[in-house]
């Protein structure tokens, strides 16, 4: 039986494939990109831990051949914080959805960012609640439709990157399911950042978001990503009006600040002498 490319064989539980995602779902592309980044970094597989919440996106860890944890809705980062602090030698990567991470999980996101704990979070952002059938999410653009926004969404959408930045993340970037090579690099850099990293990875959900909003088939949605993403390095070249309908990708923030588990280790050092 053919169980896929070397990358797939190395990093996936191939007996679980094909995955449950719909035809053309962007999540599959993103999941592969994450493993390619892991492979490129030559991480010790035994020391990689992938944590997710609940949602289509959050099904990813079940397919990935690492220490994998599928938690409760919204709580991935809280579980991951426990894991990372308890065993800092683990590379902890969180795969989450826009709903999981920024709706019910928003508090854990801002606090993980604030603590600058060394966790890399990749948001599989399809601008909708896919798993539950197409309700609008905190990243659904204004005026678009969801099953709970039958007259058009009146909520303003989060800019996940600005949110993470405002909360204190030290690495912040955005990629897409179309711009895979760039995304792989962003994930690599996120993992390499000693601190909290967030990569807003724009996905596509042809089944719900696409249908509800007449965005066409998966290929149309991929073309949308291709045509409307502007690299942050090129933003200055564009006129403001043109940018209005576009979205910006690339690296937004890459700074160095004390990391949480490092700081904790300093406490351990400090109190060693108190040990009876």
């Amino acid at each position, binding site marked *: 039986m053919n169980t896929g490319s070397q990358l797939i064989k190395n990093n996936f539980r191939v007996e679980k494939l094909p995955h449950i995602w719909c035809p*053309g779902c962007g999540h599959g592309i993103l999941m592969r990109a994450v493993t390619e980044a892991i492979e490129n970094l030559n991480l010790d597989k035994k020391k990689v831990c992938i944590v997710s919440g609940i949602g289509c996106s959050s099904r990813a860890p079940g397919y990935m051949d690492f220490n994998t944890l599928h938690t409760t809705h919204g709580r991935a980062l809280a579980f991951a914080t426990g894991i990372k602090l308890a065993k800092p030698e683990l590379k902890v990567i969180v795969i989450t959805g826009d709903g999981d991470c920024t709706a019910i999980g928003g508090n854990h996101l801002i606090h993980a960012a604030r603590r600058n704990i060394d966790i890399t979070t990749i948001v599989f952002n399809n601008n909708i609640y896919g798993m539950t059938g197409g309700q609008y999410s905190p990243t659904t653009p204004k005026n678009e439709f969801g099953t709970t926004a039958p007259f058009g969404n009146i909520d303003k959408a989060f800019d996940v990157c600005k949110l993470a930045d405002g909360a204190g993340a030290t690495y912040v970037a955005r990629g897409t399911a179309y711009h*895979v090579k760039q995304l792989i690099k962003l994930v690599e850099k996120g993992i390499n950042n000693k601190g909290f990293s967030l990569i807003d990875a724009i996905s596509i959900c*042809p089944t719900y978001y696409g249908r509800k909003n007449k965005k066409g088939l998966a290929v149309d949605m991929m*073309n949308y990503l291709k045509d409307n993403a502007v690299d942050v390095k090129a933003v200055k070249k564009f006129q403001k009006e043109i940018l209005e309908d576009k979205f910006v990708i690339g690296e937004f923030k890459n700074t160095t600040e004390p990391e949480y588990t490092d700081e904790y280790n300093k406490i351990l050092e400090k109190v060693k002498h108190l040990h009876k």
Partner: protein
Amino acid sequence: MVISNTDKELKIIEKWCKGCGICVEFCPKDVLEVLDETIFIRDLENCIKCGFCELRCPDYAIYLEGDSNE
């Protein structure tokens, strides 16, 4: 060992393909086609082994393999 692209072979796993057409759309050389909801290599000759299909296939159903004897 670095394998030059041209050593690679284009492989598909029909069982995994869900016929989304993404690889077809973004193949620069129009090598691919979806027939009956499954991927089909129409024109292998034209393939430049760029790997774009592999990179964007959501289902890992198409890829380039270095060692053709595997």
